[in-house]
Structures are given as C-alpha cells and as structure tokens.
C-alpha cells in the first residue's frame, strides 16, 4: 500500500511551497469552521433578530419613539457594538481551551506554524464575527438615520470604535482561553468580565456625575468607548475633542494583545492552568 508509492509530493524538496504565512492559513480554516459549519451564522442571525427588535421599538414604540433621530441611531449603534463585541469575546474565549478539550490542539501544535501564528489566526477569525455583525448593522443604522446626515459618521464611528473594542476583547478572550484550565472556566470568566464591563453602561441615569464618575467611565474600556460614540453622535462634539476616552480601549488592546503575542510560545500549550505543560 504505502510501500508501493515512491514518487511522492511531500513537504520535501520537490514540493511547491505555500506563499501564505501560517497565521493566514489558520485564520482561513478557523473562518471556514466558524462560518461554514460552526456557530457564526446562528450567532449573526440571532444578532440580526435582536437589532430588528431594537430598531422596530426605537422607530415605533410610544415610549421610545420620542427619541431624537440621532439618539435612535446612537442607541441602535451602541447595541450593535455591544452585542457584536460580546459574540466576538465568546468565540475567542473558546478558541484555545475548546480545541484543547476537543483534542484538536495537539495536531496544530505539531505543525511548523508558530504558536504566535496560531493565536493570530484565531484572533483574526474571531474578529470576522465582529465585522459580520457590523455589516448586518449597516441597514438598521441607515433606516433610522435617513434624512439627518448621521448615517455615514455613525457607521464610521461604529466601525472604528467597534473594531477597537472587538480587538481588545477578542485578545482578552484568547488570553483567558489560553491560560484557563478548562473551557468552562474560560467562558465563565469571559462572561463575568463582559457583565462587569457592560453593567456600568446600562445605569438608568447614565454615567455617575463628577470626577469620580468620569474616571469610572474612562477606566472601563467599553463604557469609555460607548461614551465617545454618544459624545460625537448625540452631543455633536468634534471627533478629536473626546479622543481621550479611547485611551482605555487602546491600552487594553496593547496590553492584552501584547501579552498574548509575547507570551504565546509559553502559554499556548497542551494543558491549561498554572500547572499546565
């Protein structure tokens, strides 16, 4: 059987080398797993149902429809960003710990792709979920914002701020996934973190007043980013005036992403937890 085949095309001298870097190949496969046969379409469908309900209520409900059009766009955009980022975090929190539990991580670790390449590929795949969520949100924002020239700035803000948040939380989720002892732990910690970050944005009276309140908003990357969106969209502030609110999301990207990339060779391993190997 195998002995009979001598003329082989292997990874040896005669083979044509692939041009794509390892992380790109991992990202491509992860995206196929996510979108062709995974949870991606289901999550995005659920996301679009949620946005439909929010948009419908915003446009027609007697309690909500007093909202000024800009506020309606802002509300829908904030929901889109928040939920889009949430699903990105959930997917990334499963990326390494889930593979460990399914027994598929070892075969990936046995390839020449570096461990940094593996996490970068998984990060890119998780971000594809955010970009899909954003694309789904576009028609809703367009419907609500027609006639007040807010659609383009709202979409640009949503894309920029949402991508920043998605990158930060996806990196954080991946970091948790790599160091967690089990997939359950990774998902539970990620969801708790998400609740802790989003809860302050849902306070009925908005952000707490005074300098303490301002600090609380600024240190929470999600609250700060959504505050920036509101400031530009609803309050009509200039794009650069409140940029300082984006410091905490940027810091989170640099910290989580930096630790992930720098420590990947040590923390992406067969067993999670502190005593893993």
């Amino acid at each position, binding site marked *: 059987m195998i002995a009979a085949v001598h003329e082989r095309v292997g990874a040896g001298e005669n083979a044509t080398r692939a041009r794509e870097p390892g992380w790109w190949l991992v990202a491509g496969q992860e995206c196929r797993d996510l979108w062709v046969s995974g949870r991606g379409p289901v999550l995005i469908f659920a996301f679009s149902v949620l946005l439909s309900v929010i948009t419908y209520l915003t446009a027609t409900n007697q309690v909500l429809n007093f909202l000024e059009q800009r506020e309606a766009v802002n509300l829908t955009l904030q929901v889109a960003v928040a939920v889009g980022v949430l699903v990105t975090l959930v997917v990334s929190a499963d990326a390494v710990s889930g593979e460990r539990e399914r027994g598929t991580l070892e*075969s990936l670790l046995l390839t020449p792709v570096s461990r940094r390449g593996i996490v970068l590929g998984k990060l890119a795949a998780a971000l594809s979920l955010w970009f899909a969520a954003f694309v789904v949100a576009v028609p809703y924002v367009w419907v609500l914002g027609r006639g007040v020239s807010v659609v383009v700035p709202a979409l640009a803000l949503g894309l920029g701020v949402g991508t920043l948040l998605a990158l930060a939380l996806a990196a954080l989720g991946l970091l948790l996934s790599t160091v967690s002892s089990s997939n359950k732990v990774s998902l539970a910690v990620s969801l708790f973190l998400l609740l802790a970050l989003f809860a302050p944005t849902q306070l009925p009276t908005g952000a707490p007043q005074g300098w303490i309140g301002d600090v609380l908003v600024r240190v929470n990357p999600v609250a700060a980013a959504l505050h920036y969106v509101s400031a530009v969209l609803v309050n009509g502030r200039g794009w650069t005036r409140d940029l300082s609110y984006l410091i905490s999301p940027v810091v989170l990207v640099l910290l989580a992403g930096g630790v992930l990339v720098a420590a990947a060779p040590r923390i992406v391993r*067969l067993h999670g937890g502190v005593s893993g*190997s």
Partner: protein
Amino acid sequence: MTTVTLDAAGLTKRFGARTAVDDVSFTAHRGEVLGLLGPNGAGKTTTIRLLTTVLTPTAGEFSVDGVPCSQPTEIRRRVGVLAESAGYPGHQTGRDYLRYHARLFGLARRDAETVATRLLTEVGLAERASSRISTYSRGMRQRLGIARALVNDPSVVFLDEPTLGLDPAGQRQVLGIVRDIAAGRGATVVLSTHTLPEVEEVCTTVLILNGGRVLTVGSVADVTRAVAAAPRSARLRVPFESVDRAADALAGVTGLLVRAVDERPDLLTISMTAVGADLNEALRVVLAAGIPVLSFEVEGARLGDAFAAMTTAGTP
C-alpha cells in the same frame, strides 16, 4: 539501518516535584520500527511529546534527522505524529482535514490536494474522502490520523497507541500501514503500545520504560533473552477432541506434570517437576502420537514475559 534519525541523550521532564521522564537516552535508525513499551504512567506519551517539541525538556537534548532540539520548528517539519488522544473536527471531510494540514506544513494548494488524495488512497479511505469525519468509524479515524502524520513526508513517525480500541481487522490494517511506513518510506517509526504481540510482530527494536526511566533497549530477541529464565513450563494447545489423548501420551514422560486448564478445554499446561526433564520431549511425544499441535508456547520466552519480569522487578 545505519543512518541515525532519532538521538536522545539524558532527556528529562519534571512537572513540579514529579519526574515524568528521567534521563532517557536512545537512538533510532532509518527504516527501524521502535516499540516504546511501559506500564501506564511509565512516561511513553511524555517522551513522545518531548521528542515532537510539544513539551520542552527540563534537561537533556535530542535531535531528529540531525536537527537539534534548539530548532523546534525544523524538527516539527521532520516528524509526523498520531497522538494518543487525538481529536478530529467532525464537520470537516477527510480530504479537507489532510489538505489543511498539508498547507500548514508549507505545501502549495495544488500539492496539498495531491498529497491528501494520495494519502487517503494509501490508508484505504479514498472512497470516504468526501465524507465528514463525524461519520468515520474509530478505525477510519485512526487511519486518517496516520495519514495526517504523513503529510509532511516525515523522517520519524510517532504513533501513540494506534490500535487502541480497534477490532482485529482494524488492528491488522494499521499494523500493515506501520510496516509500510518503515519499509516503503524508509522512515523511523516509534510505536507506543500496550499490545505486546503487536510489538513482536512489527518492531525491530524495543525500548521499555518504567517510572520514566529506560529499563532496557534493544532488539526484541535480545530483550527477551536478557531476562528469560530457564523454561520451567509450557502451554500446549491441541484440538479439543484430542486433549485426552495428548494428556495420556504425556503421562508417560518422566519429570513432567500435565494439567488441564479449566476455562480452556483445548489447552494443557506442562510443568517440569524434576531436574533433567525436557519440555521438547513433551512436544516430540505428542507429535509422535499423531496429535495435531495448534500451538506450543514455552513460558518465559515471549516479550510479554520479559516485559512483566522487568516492570515488576523494576530492573532488567
């Protein structure tokens, strides 16, 4: 069998206070099938993970095909591994799975397709190439795992319990593939298994581990001979209807005690009860009586006996 493909020296791995692999040294050559034996927890899987760079050794060094362990990426290009607890993405087809892994090893799209198709044929999965892995039987998954271990045309192939959970036909199929990898490809195969008859059948050399340490390494014959005591008993299997005749024939041989085995009515155990008795004489008597002999196994002459003796005593 002259080219050294695997060379380990003083390989040690500690997890906290526990030493999983302790000062393991050995070499393996091109075309050799090395059986890696040991009781549960002996350090077989850890040794494989060290040699395939999944784990980093606490001490010691090794090389694969001349590449030192300081170049893990280059080593991974030269090894193929079927892991003991390998999982498979059930939603992918066998072809997609192999193609993806071939791409990860640097093959261009078209070559990856060619390699996937060829390997699926070689392991007998060509007809199921487009089926989802979730529909594969355990034996098919094992063969797919072996095919994945070969996508990079490795110099050394590590197979960790490749026949675990397979039916006899599946086991034979996998062992045939193991032979072909060594003989046809000229690769070194490191076969970790608990099934000793498998080792006797396909392995050229064996390495027995216990408690993370190497007990012995050498050819199957050498290892067996090293611990074999002078034979004291044998097991004779004859057709069921001939058992009584065989027992009667053996009763006339001095110095031998013949007993029936309750749970195996076709089996007799023959023990030496006097110095100078000869187990071969028992075989001659039975044959002379015209009784067909289905098997005649002298206790202590099998690898299993050597393995049991070594792992129980802890030393060769």
